[in-house]
């Protein structure tokens, strides 16, 4: 099957500022992709372009459609939660379910009602009576009940407490996701999604700095707790990041880089393990907050 999202030279400028700078990427079907980058790095802009919400330059095909000209057809198969989207204050829970059931051919009412039964929401409740977390719960219940081929979640769990966040990601994986679906997630809480992601894309200053599957990343990046006596040997192998944990040096190595250290070399330096996505992110983004 061809790619769900295929971008070639995708660019978006706001006046003089370049938000997305000619990026290429391809997301195949059946993946859960984490699009991760600091604030203002262009991740929301990229997603907006893919959802046909903004004009852009370059080539972008989503499920075979051009989001600029074929948005109406595209939205039959795509669903999204935008980071700043909010439900209108006058909407009632029961009306929201009726409306989405009425306009969306792929909406499963039982599913939505089941998700809502797991919250404190009542059918007669209006959005203006809800807490921020409850509004997100309603929005997620509606979106998760839509059998879309592509689901885009831009900061979906903002305002949710940790119990519901965990439950949401579990539902997403067990109840929603299958090999015909593709999910693109952006979030600041990387540690909560890293175990469900199949692919990672790091974006910085409108460019993609890393795009790889989780397996590739597991093979490529190695974190080593370097023993004191091997520090200079470790530094010679050009770690991409170093920090200190409980007085011990922890270094991150890219085994996939040309001339990079091999697994055996690194194992000789000390205890090795796979880095967390958060550590990898921090190492990759160094300097972008300066």
């Amino acid at each position, binding site marked *: 099957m061809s790619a769900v999202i295929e971008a070639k030279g995708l660019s978006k400028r706001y006046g003089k500022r370049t938000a997305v700078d000619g990026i290429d990427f391809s997301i195949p079907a059946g993946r859960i992709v984490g699009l991760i980058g600091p604030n203002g790095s262009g991740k929301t802009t990229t997603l907006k372009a893919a959802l046909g919400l903004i004009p852009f330059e370059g080539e972008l095909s989503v499920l075979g459609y051009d989001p600029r000209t074929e948005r109406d057809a595209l939205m039959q198969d795509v669903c999204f939660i935008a980071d700043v989207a909010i*439900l209108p204050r006058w909407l009632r829970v029961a009306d929201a379910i009726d409306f*989405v059931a009425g306009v969306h051919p792929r909406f499963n009412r039982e599913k939505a009602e089941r998700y809502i039964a797991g919250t404190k929401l009542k059918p007669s409740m209006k959005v203006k009576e809800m807490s921020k977390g409850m509004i997100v719960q309603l929005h997620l219940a509606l979106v998760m009940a839509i059998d879309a081929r592509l689901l885009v979640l831009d900061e979906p769990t903002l305002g949710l407490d940790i119990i519901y966040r965990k439950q949401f990601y579990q539902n997403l994986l067990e109840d929603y996701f299958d090999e015909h679906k593709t999910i693109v997630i952006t979030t600041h809480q990387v540690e909560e999604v890293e175990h469900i992601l199949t692919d990672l894309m790091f974006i910085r200053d409108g460019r993609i700095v890393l795009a790889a599957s989780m397996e590739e990343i597991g093979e490529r990046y190695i974190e080593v707790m370097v023993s004191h006596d091997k520090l200079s040997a470790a530094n010679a192998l050009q770690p991409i990041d170093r920090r200190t944990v409980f007085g011990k040096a922890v270094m991150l190595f890219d085994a996939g880089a040309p001339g990079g250290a091999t697994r055996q070399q690194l194992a000789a330096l000390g205890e090795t393990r796979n880095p967390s996505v958060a550590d990898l992110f921090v190492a990759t983004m160094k300097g972008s907050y300066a």
Partner: protein
Amino acid sequence: MNTTTMKWLLRREFWENKGSMFWAPLVVGALLVLLVGGTIVYGVAAHGVPAHVTINGQTVANGGMAASVTLESREMIAKIATGMYLATASPLFFMLSFAVFFYCLNSLYDERRDRSILFWKSLPVSDQMTVASKAVTALLVAPLITIVLAVGASLALLFLVCVAFSFQGINMFSAVLASRDLYLSPLILVALLPVYAVWALPTVAWLMLVSSWARTKPFMWAVGVPLIGLLILKWVDTAMEKISGVSLAIMPYAQDIAARILGGILPGAWFIFKGGVPAGLRPSENGVDLPALVSNSYATLAGLDAWIGVALAVLMLFAAMRLRRWRDEG
């Protein structure tokens, strides 16, 4: 167009605007019945039937005492009452104009301001259909709701008056129920709805265009642009006249345009655009000539100006749709 989606979009608009489109006219209609009806019932009960009855400026003399009310004068009262009873609900139609004005002004602005537009856009509903559903709500749904409520309130009031008379021994029921206009009046209102829609369309489209375009304060833009434009034109025109003695002669057109993009949603405004209410339609001693009201109203559609307005309105709605499609909300 997908009719199921349209049905749900119209329902959505009703949910959002239930207060201004349904509850407000319902409450005002109920108050009208209670206050006006109460006053009449009390007046008749306390002071007996007056020597003459005045309904909307039409006087039927020799109402007289109960015993002396002739069949003829009874029929005359019934004819006037049934021809004009809907006029008692005119506050509701006035309210309708306000409701539609602010509805249109906020129709594409509120969803951007509260960012719920991104939720609506995540559903398979096109911008064309959304904009169309809002225009249909303003032009047909809201007026229809008002018509139903107005007819209900007017009938209740008429009934109250008849009851009050019957306590004085005057049975108006048979004359009222036998009057053709009692049944004709609500149909007339519905028959006028297409005329209303044609003349209201330019105003609705203008307000929706501003609503989809303005970043802040849509009211200032919607009202300010035509009025200030008119003012500037007036200055230029006056200056030209003073200096060269030649008037631009566009002022009447400019005023007409401003009136039509702001005042088209007033029911009956078509007569004003066409130079006043025809003499034959002014209420006379025999009440109102309802069929003439319909034919005169439809006659206003014969000219080109009504349809130029429609054409411009379609362009404005198209622009509003494109703006909604591409507006980037942060």
